[in-house]
């Protein structure tokens, strides 16, 4: 087995053995049960004593599902940061890295192994949590979003971007410092997306430029917007479009898929950050 895979397997084993995963899975199941109950109440809603129609049930379900997925994407993002930020620095600080890195493995294999293990965990959580939620919602109210596969990919990609950032920071900074920096950047990227939307609505090039810059620097918000696009049925898109260009500022509305060129950029960004992490750790004293 290649050294990177040995390290990746160790990462997965560590997370599974610690209580983190158990707690996360238990809370996710609780959240799914609660949302299932919430969705089951939608068909019982009435307007002036008359039960709402099927179209309205679907529209409310669609919007509510976007909010639930927003919660899952945030849990995923925070978890990715919390496990990635101390992933390398923790081993260096504790001394575990000394015995491991004296073995015949390149530093690159250590960094890539850590990243790969974390990426597998993020993928597993993104797919499992979102898939179960989608199945439960479909069973309860008979609603399914238009592009479930794309939704899973965008959710995973958002988590992957953050865990790559966390891994990079972990090559130099302690877990707490790296985690806080990654979270602040994550929050700023979200705000940057809204600011950019406002800029495009009011045709202000500078403000729009801020939004584009944040999308390029940290693509988390743009990937979340991709998830929104995947979740949004035609009715919601039409409704949002009624607000005109100002709707672009709404983080829960996305009329179109992110352009292919931007998705390529996200891939390059991730590869670049990982390469930077390898370069940075290669020069780190252990």
């Amino acid at each position: 087995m290649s050294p990177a895979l040995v390290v990746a397997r160790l990462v997965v084993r560590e997370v599974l053995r610690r209580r983190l995963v158990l707690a996360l899975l238990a809370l996710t199941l609780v959240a799914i049960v609660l949302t299932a109950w919430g969705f089951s109440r939608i068909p019982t809603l009435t307007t002036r004593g008359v039960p709402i129609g099927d179209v309205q049930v679907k529209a409310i379900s669609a919007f509510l599902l976007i909010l639930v997925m927003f919660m899952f994407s945030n849990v995923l993002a925070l978890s990715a940061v919390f496990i990635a930020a101390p992933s390398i620095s923790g081993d260096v600080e504790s001394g575990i890295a000394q015995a491991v890195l004296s073995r015949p493995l390149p530093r690159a294999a250590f960094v890539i192994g850590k990243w790969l293990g974390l990426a597998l965990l993020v993928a597993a959580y993104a797919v499992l949590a979102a898939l179960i939620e989608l199945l439960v919602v479909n069973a309860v109210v008979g609603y399914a979003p238009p592009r479930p596969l794309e939704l899973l990919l965008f959710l995973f990609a958002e988590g992957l971007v953050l865990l790559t950032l966390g891994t990079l920071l972990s090559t130099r900074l302690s877990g707490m410092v790296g985690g806080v920096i990654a979270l602040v950047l994550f929050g700023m990227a979200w705000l940057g997306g809204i600011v950019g939307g406002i800029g495009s609505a009011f045709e202000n090039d500078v403000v729009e430029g801020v939004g584009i810059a944040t999308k390029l620097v940290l693509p988390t918000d743009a990937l979340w917007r991709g998830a929104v696009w995947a979740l949004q049925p035609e009715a919601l898109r039409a409704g949002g479009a009624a607000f005109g260009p100002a709707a672009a500022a709404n983080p829960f509305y996305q009329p179109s898929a992110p352009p292919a060129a931007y998705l390529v950029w996200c891939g390059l960004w991730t590869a670049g950050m990982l390469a930077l992490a390898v370069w940075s750790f290669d020069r780190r004293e252990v």
Partner: protein
Amino acid sequence: MTSGDTAIETADLAKRYGGLVALAGLSMRIPHGDVFGFLGPNGAGKTTAVKLLLGLSRPTSGEARLLGASLDDARAHREARRRVGYLPELFRYQGWLTAREVLGVHADLAGLPRSEAPPEIARVLGVVGLAARAGDRVANYSKGMQQRLGLAVALLGRPALVMLDEPTSALDPVGRHDVREIIRALKAEGVTVFLNSHLLSEVEQVCDRVAIVDRGRVIAQGTFEELLAGDTVHLRVTGGVPDDLDRFGTLDREGDRLVVRGIARERIPDLVAALVAAGARVHEVRPAQESLEDRFLSLLGHDA
């Protein structure tokens, strides 16, 4: 630099952290099969030297070869590390794993064939006396048990060179004895052992050669015979003592007791003859070899 029969070789190996000199021009050569003691007070640069040799840290200047592989040749150095076992001073292993699993991870990282790993893991667990607790999580181990595990990790795969950084720091007297026995067994198998220690007795009991390091610099190195060769003779003398006795060594006189330090063994009869010729009466002549501790302290500039 030459290699061949040399396990470790360094030339002016230096490490500075900003203005702090951790290692100032280390030059040494350790032949294959030697048990080499790297002796020095805390903060002397012993751990820095080991980390540089293992590639955990980068030298500021100088050269080093580990089992013939230069530090500058990353690929060759990595290959050389396949045959090196290391117990760090800060011995820490994955607490959520069992000892057997930790060894399994290291067997994978060291590239041990899958079929050979289980018997080899069982062997090293037996050597360090952890076989009965091999299924326990490392987090539940005492410090001493964790150090024994570290020793097992270092012995895994029968390396040609074992680097032990303060290997008995957490061990009780029984554990220290066990480690000495393990080192002797390694020597019998022809394994080179690099032993970092500030424990003189430990080094004295197992090492063939030592280097004494202080403030990042080797201040003496060689076999014990070479290091402790600068000898001392104790005499009891009455009557007149000539003034020119300091040509034999440094003198220390108190009453009829005379101590001459730094005198070569073969010059003792000349010293006695000079005393007798000057009219002194010599009652006792007792050559004494300096202890490692005396030598260590005198080299570090402390009075023995």
